[in-house]
């Protein structure tokens, strides 16, 4: 086959274009390896949302050497919107149980903070999803991260190409940030777990509803930049009733009957992905996060509590993410 000058030029142009699109993601973007030597993940069994969650969670937290005396704890649940038959948000009873548990462990203060990604009326989401009454009853302060005071924050990695973001003071000044995602599928990112849950700290007042800039800069890339910049100290993932299908808003309930605790967000997400029947290394932000941010490799994760039960049928996903299934 003869290669003409025209073919050569076209092929070169195509190669250059392809490289310009794909290469940036594969170049190293992290300046330092912040993976702990070992990570710990506990899978707890919880049949339903009930008052017993407090006991289950307290026992689960005993599996971790937490030192919270005098610390400010910020619980970051996943509160996206309110829809009837609410399965899209982290259940308020789990958040309440976490707040009580951390108070008992000596935290100076425990507050709940979130910036819903779709609904501008945060108070409507709180009241309709049952949060408002529970938080008020237990005198737990809530901070709307969509409208909190903002601090210009340089990003510690450069997956998105953004150099900085305006981020809420409440989160940046937290001594102990707990990501509390709902375990569910997501039609743009495959899954929404502890790392993706951090989209909620990006302020809507500054970046819009939804936080559109993160979509344009790349969802997987944005997750990595956010998690590298704002450390997640602990994870409590709500998988009692998880969600599959067309998440984050229009999926269907999938009882998983698990709560996942972890001292490493990457490890938590890897275990949650496995519980959903997915191969963690096929989820870009988990795989890439496992290179510098936390441990996604099971050999570096101490699994405590219940054993991981791989489902016989993986969580349903939109067609673009069928490759995630481990089976």
């Amino acid at each position, binding site marked *: 086959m003869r290669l003409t000058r025209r073919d050569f030029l076209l092929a070169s142009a195509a190669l250059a274009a392809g490289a310009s699109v794909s290469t940036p993601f594969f170049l190293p973007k992290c300046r330092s390896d912040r993976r702990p030597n070992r990570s710990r993940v506990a899978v707890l069994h919880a049949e339903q949302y009930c008052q017993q969650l407090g006991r289950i969670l307290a026992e689960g937290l005993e599996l971790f050497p937490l030192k919270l005396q005098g610390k400010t704890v910020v619980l970051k649940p996943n509160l996206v919107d309110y829809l009837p038959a609410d399965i899209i948000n982290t259940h308020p009873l789990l958040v309440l149980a976490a707040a009580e548990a951390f108070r008992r462990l000596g935290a100076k203060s425990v507050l709940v903070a979130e910036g819903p990604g779709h609904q501008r009326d945060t108070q409507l989401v709180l009241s309709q999803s049952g949060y408002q009454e529970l938080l008020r009853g237990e005198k737990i302060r809530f901070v709307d991260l969509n409208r909190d005071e903002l601090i210009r924050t340089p990003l510690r990695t450069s997956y998105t190409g953004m150099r900085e973001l305006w981020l809420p003071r409440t989160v940046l000044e937290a001594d102990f940030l707990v990501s509390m995602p709902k375990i569910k599928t997501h039609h743009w990112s495959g899954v929404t777990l502890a790392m993706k849950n951090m989209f909620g700290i990006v302020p809507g*007042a500054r970046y819009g509803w939804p936080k559109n800039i993160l979509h344009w800069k790349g969802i997987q890339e944005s997750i990595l930049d956010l998690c590298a910049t704002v450390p997640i100290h602990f994870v409590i993932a709500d998988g009692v009733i998880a969600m599959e299908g067309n998440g984050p808003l229009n999926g269907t309930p999938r009882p998983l009957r698990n709560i996942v605790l972890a001292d490493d967000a990457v490890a938590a997400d890897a275990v949650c992905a496995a519980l959903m029947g997915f191969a963690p290394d096929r989820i870009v932000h988990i795989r890439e996060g496992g290179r510098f941010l936390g441990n996604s490799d099971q050999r570096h994760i101490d699994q405590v509590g219940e054993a991981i039960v791989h489902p016989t049928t993986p969580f349903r996903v939109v067609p673009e993410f069928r490759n995630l299934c481990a089976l």
Partner: protein
Amino acid sequence: MALTDLLAELIRRQFPCGGWSALSSSAQPALEPTSYSALVLRSRVRAAGERAYSFLLGAQNPNGSWPVFAGDDRDGSWVTSLVSIALRDLVPAMPARVKGIRWLLRTVGKEAHWFWKWKFRTSDRHVRFDPDKFGWPWFPDTVSWVVPSALAILALNQLSRSCCEFELIPSRVERGVEMLRDRACPGGGWNAGNGVVYGAAVAPHPDDTAIALLALHDRPNDPVVRSAVAYLERTGPTLTAPWSLAWTILALAAHHRPIILLREALLAIPDLLCIADTSTLALVCLALDHERSLTDLGVPR
């Protein structure tokens, strides 16, 4: 609870610089709460209103836009429309307002660009919308969304169209209206931006719907508008959150629907004075005095 108590609380929260922060716990003056508060106080508490206007004028970016908060980057944002509305009828603010309107006319949703139009038509079709119908983004270099587009339409409609400098206004407004109609939810009303994603209808939001209806107040016979009004009339009585309830009152009043029961429901919400979000506090004041507020928002009665 009386309007005077809420006004007193609003004044108490004003910073010496004339601005208000978004949350009562914050010390960072922001433009959205300041715009609503300025609208509330403009004719009721003159001194506080004048300090607010002074803050708004001082915060303008060199390019004519307004930032989200004091100290923000200078590229501009969606609050430019709100500030332009708040500065309405203020003669000394006219040059600043004109600069703001010029910025709004230059700003388009990213889908207006041929490349993104082509992408949304060919490869990125999970969100159902017509990229030919574009409005305004939350901030530059992103796509159009319902709230910034509706606020921009309200702001542009307040200017005299006879001025040749603004000959683009009618076509931009019409394009924005087309965009709003295109993005409506199948069952009536509006969500943040799209009615159908991955083949599933997205649920409408009362506040987004109300703001869009204010922008479309002059099109009561449009089927999309009628359907949205019906959604808001169904949803209004179920609302317990002051932000959504206040917007709903303003929108239904603009469309000449009864709002007495909704007003009573708003007044019955406990602890209105303790609302942390200052924009909500100011909106409650606007809703409780809706006749005057609609005029201030540029919605003729």
